[in-house]
């Protein structure tokens, strides 16, 4: 009798444990791992000839003028790369992202460098609340002045960064396409921070871009260029299959 009761107790205990385990597991939220390789790639082309980019005379800042003595720099409003590619275009998913994918913040911390009295990169993509660092690689002071739309959720700021000063770490609260950045000391310095939700890509010299970790689904892609405006197209991404999207901007 006594032995039987002991077995029964064990059986009931095990059954209860199993039930609890099943219940706990069923309550746990499982995050779908991004399908590997489901990226969007493509090329941005420029149709027609790029508008004339004026050379920049930096003689006011001799240290920077010396850097560019052999290769004078020009404005970077439209940078046509090799093979008709268009550089510095930000491509992002403007519609169709699920809530969790939309709110994911990239963990990387991009660097916005001031080098040779230019912004490197000229255009930078960011997620809201993604940290970025502003560095100064020049022997001269800079004054970084990003100018989000007045009255919006992002606030304008204006900080001096002497040579050798520690990096400035900052974030943008809300999406904004795009935030113009200028230097108050060197009027020719100009760049853009593009704050978008979800994964994004920025086109390189050859005009190609890559957006990684896109969950399967149907989306609207938007490509933004600082002077040529925006373009959109629909795209469907299947699980594990890379998708492609090309854009062509017309030179004004």
């Amino acid at each position, binding site marked *: 009798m006594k032995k039987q009761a002991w077995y029964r107790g064990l059986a009931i205990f095990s059954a209860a444990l199993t039930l609890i385990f099943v219940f706990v597991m069923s309550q746990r939220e499982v995050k779908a791992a991004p399908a590997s390789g489901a990226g969007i790639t493509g090329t941005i082309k420029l149709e027609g000839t790029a508008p004339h980019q004026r050379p920049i*005379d*930096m003689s006011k800042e001799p240290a920077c003028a010396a850097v560019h003595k052999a290769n004078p720099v020009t*404005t970077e*409003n439209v940078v046509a790369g090799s093979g008709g590619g268009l550089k510095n275009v930000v491509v992002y998913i403007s519609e169709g992202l699920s809530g969790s994918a939309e709110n994911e913040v990239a963990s990387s911390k991009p660097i916005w460098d001031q080098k040779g009295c230019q912004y490197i990169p000229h255009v930078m993509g960011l997620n809201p609340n993604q940290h970025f660092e502003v560095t100064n690689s020049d022997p001269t002071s800079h*004054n970084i002045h990003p100018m989000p739309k007045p009255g919006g959720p992002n606030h304008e700021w204006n900080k001096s960064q002497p040579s050798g000063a520690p990096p400035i770490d900052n974030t943008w609260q809300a999406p904004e396409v795009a935030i*113009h950045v200028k230097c*108050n*000391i060197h*009027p*020719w310095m100009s760049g853009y921070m593009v704050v978008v939700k979800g994964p994004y890509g920025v086109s390189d010299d050859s005009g190609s871009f890559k957006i990684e970790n896109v969950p399967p689904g149907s989306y609207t892609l938007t490509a933004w260029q600082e002077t040529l405006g925006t373009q959109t197209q629909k795209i469907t991404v299947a699980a594990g299959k890379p998708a492609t999207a090309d854009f062509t901007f017309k030179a004004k």
Partner: protein
Amino acid sequence: MGKLLAVTLVVIAIASAVPIVAHIWVPPADISTHGYQIDEQLSDTMVEAGICFLAAQIVLGVFIWMFSGRKPGARVRTFPGGAKGLVGAAFVLVGLEVLILGAFGKKAWATIYFTPPAADALPVQVQAGQFAFYFRYPGPDGKFGPLHPDKINEANQNIFGLDVDADKDSKDDIVTAEMGVPINKEIHLLMHAKDVGHSFYVRELRIQQDFVPGLDLSLHFTATNVGRYEIVCTQLCGLGHYNMKAYLNVMSQPDYDAWIKQQATMQ
């Protein structure tokens, strides 16, 4: 104690006059046709003010020496007629001095500001803005196109706000970051500020003129020495004021012609 103060005063006064009399700190050589007048005026002022300064310090020292260590109860002698006459005489003296300086200085000032530039003077426009100077040359047509402040776009290097497509006078305008001028040629400088008050100062040219927002000011000068000189802003204009400068490049006529041609290709 009083005698020590008297001696210290006189020693400091004489010591501070030594570097000036000995010409230890001389201004950079003048490179303009009008600059000698400014230099003359400055040295006249320095001599006059220096003599007054030394005389005043020495007289003060002498009085301190004479009246230090008086015995208690010693009678104080007063100036006959009280201090009124003395103060009145001092007012007249100082007023005369300022008037005389002004009368002599007027000539230098008038030759720079009250004479029109020669008809063949080369017009150069300078725009001061936080925190850089930019220059505009009228190009072959000799005419400046109109300015459209709403079109100013520094990212595009449209510093002056020109509308090259609509204004035919603007088409050949040449905008530069450095001021190139030919030697021995009169320059008619047309000045305007984009934002706040600034100043155009070239030590070697003996020119210092403020920019006043909303006012078009002009002056003229002739540079007589080839070289590269600094143009600095001498009116506190904001955070980047310390870094607000440009260069004045005085060149021979052929060098200038080549330079302006090269600048024209960069527009």
